[in-house]
């Protein structure tokens, strides 16, 4: 299974885009069935087991180019002042050594015990069968309780739809056998995506072969986004000097700062 852009580009010479479903080893399902949570909406492998999507981010390969940030915005029509994913960049000075630049891609962790789900008063946010945490925008009342409950600041109120918004692991793409946009566009192959239930998948192999960690382990949310090479000092609220935050001059809700 090819789980990053490099692998995908290698495979594209052998199969067509339309047959990408077979690359990921999954069968297609109707996206419209997701709201009902019906069994048909779950992606299954040819051997019949239900796929459980996860991501492994190899921080050694991330160069902080923000291509994933831009790809996500373009793919998902994310409003100008918001992010479903972005790459935090830190300058770390350790033991009087030269400063090191550390990149940290952030996105929804699609937790197995998501704190955002039980607080939703109308069950608009839910855990899909393949592990994605999704929002039914047609039901969301925009109370923002889930935004408060998320320990990763991965949710926001979309001020064009006036509903809660977040990363979906590019649900519409994975249903068609494609990789999430951020994974497909990742220049360094840092983002790897695949089936955690498949012991032979690349992501499962990476989890076996590397020491991995998750963000905010103390929250016990069982995230499905893993990091290779994550410094403990960065896995929670980063105690350091903040980036320049432009003063709020309008009704904006997310602002990139440099």
């Amino acid at each position, binding site marked *: 299974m090819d789980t990053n852009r490099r692998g995908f580009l290698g495979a594209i010479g052998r199969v067509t885009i339309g047959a990408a479903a077979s690359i990921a080893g999954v069968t297609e399902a109707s996206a419209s069935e997701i709201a009902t949570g019906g069994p048909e909406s779950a992606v299954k492998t040819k051997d019949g087991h239900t796929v459980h999507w996860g991501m492994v981010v190899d921080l050694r390969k991330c160069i902080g180019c923000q291509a994933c940030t831009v790809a996500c915005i373009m793919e998902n029509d994310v409003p100008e002042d918001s992010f479903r994913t*972005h*790459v*935090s*960049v*830190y*300058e*770390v*000075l*350790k*033991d009087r050594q030269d400063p090191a630049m550390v990149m940290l891609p*952030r996105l929804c962790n699609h937790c197995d015990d998501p*704190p955002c789900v*039980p*607080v939703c*008063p*109308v*069950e*608009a946010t839910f855990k899909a069968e393949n592990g994605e945490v999704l929002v039914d925008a047609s*039901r*969301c*009342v*925009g*109370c*923002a*309780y889930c*935004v*408060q409950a*998320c*320990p990763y*600041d991965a949710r*926001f*109120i979309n001020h064009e739809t*006036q*509903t809660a918004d977040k990363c979906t692991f590019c649900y519409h793409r994975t249903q068609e056998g494609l990789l999430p946009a951020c994974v497909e566009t990742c220049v360094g192959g840092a983002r790897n995506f695949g089936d955690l239930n498949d012991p032979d998948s690349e992501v499962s192999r990476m989890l076996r072969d590397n020491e991995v960690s998750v*963000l*905010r382990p103390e*929250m016990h949310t069982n995230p499905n986004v893993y990091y290779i090479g994550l410094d403990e*000092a*960065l896995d*929670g*609220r*980063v*105690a*350091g*000097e*903040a*980036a320049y*935050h*432009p*003063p*709020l*001059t*309008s*009704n904006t*809700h*997310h*602002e*990139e*700062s*440099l």
Partner: protein
Amino acid sequence: MEIHELVGAVHDAAWLPWAVQYFFLIAISTTAFLMALPTFVLGNEDGLPRARLALMVAVTTGITAPIALLADLHQPFRFWEFYAYTHTTSWMAWGAWIVPVYVGGVIAFAWALHRPALHAMGQENWRFAWVFRWLALGGETNWFVIPLGLITGAAALGILTYTGMEVMIVRARPLWNTPLLPLQFAATGFVGALGMMLMLERVLDHSKTLEVRLNRQLVFALAVVGGLGAIWFTLARSGLSSAHTEALTSVAGFTVWRMIAIWGGLAIAVPFVIALIQPAHTGWLTGLIAIHAAWMFRWTVFMGGQAVPKVGSGLYDALMPTGVAGLLGVIGTFGLWLFLLIAYTTFMPWTEAGLPRRSAGAPRPARSI
């Protein structure tokens, strides 16, 4: 290790000033109602002047609060979904059921108490008598005040519980995730309610006895708030409660939070000392500071809490989100409350609200303040 964040995303507050207004007004309404209820249920005639003021506060803030809450929904016309798709694991979903019971109850309770006076005004020969006959619904009995009051009282306790728990269970925000928070919301609610009653007493009543009594009760309420604050700080500093320690750690070291702590301490200490030493002729001052203390506590918890990044560094600029629009929202909510207060004192015979009749017999005489 030294860390400098070079690129990060700013997350603006998702609960806006209208949410603060809701939590502020509903706490004042429920605590005021709980202060009014014993007088009417137990038939304590001496307590009527105070209970009338408390009921006035409960009704006017109780109607304003849910309007502020709707304004904070980003999809206010989908409010019906709270009832169509109730998610029982969410405190907010329970709140959606408790709020209308309480608001309906407090309005019905006030109406029932005023029914004999409304009926009497409808029997007089004057231009708008028909309006009051209609308001009295053609009768004057109000034996149902007590069961209605007990149901509404239970709903008021339900609101104090759900509003506290709804915020307290959010583990992602350390400043909210402290077991003392529901008690602090309730205690500051009593402070705000007594502050409003003191101000209304100065405007509508001018009774020195009542002013002194309200100031004495304010002293007690402020002492409880101060005591809870001291326990909170002790638990945080000693490490006896990891939740409180984490809450303190999340804001410690920031100059703005040091200023807020001093400001909050003064907002409790100053009216406490004034009301204790000079309970007469200080109602305006202690009342205003008490209202400010209750409001400021919520503003700090909600807006200040959302200014603390969950993963990023430093603080977000969330203490005054949405700029002038947010400020206008706050002012607008107070404007609506003021309108309701004027309407209540103009059209309701509020000085006639007496003890309910126990049976269908002759009404007990009402005494106006």
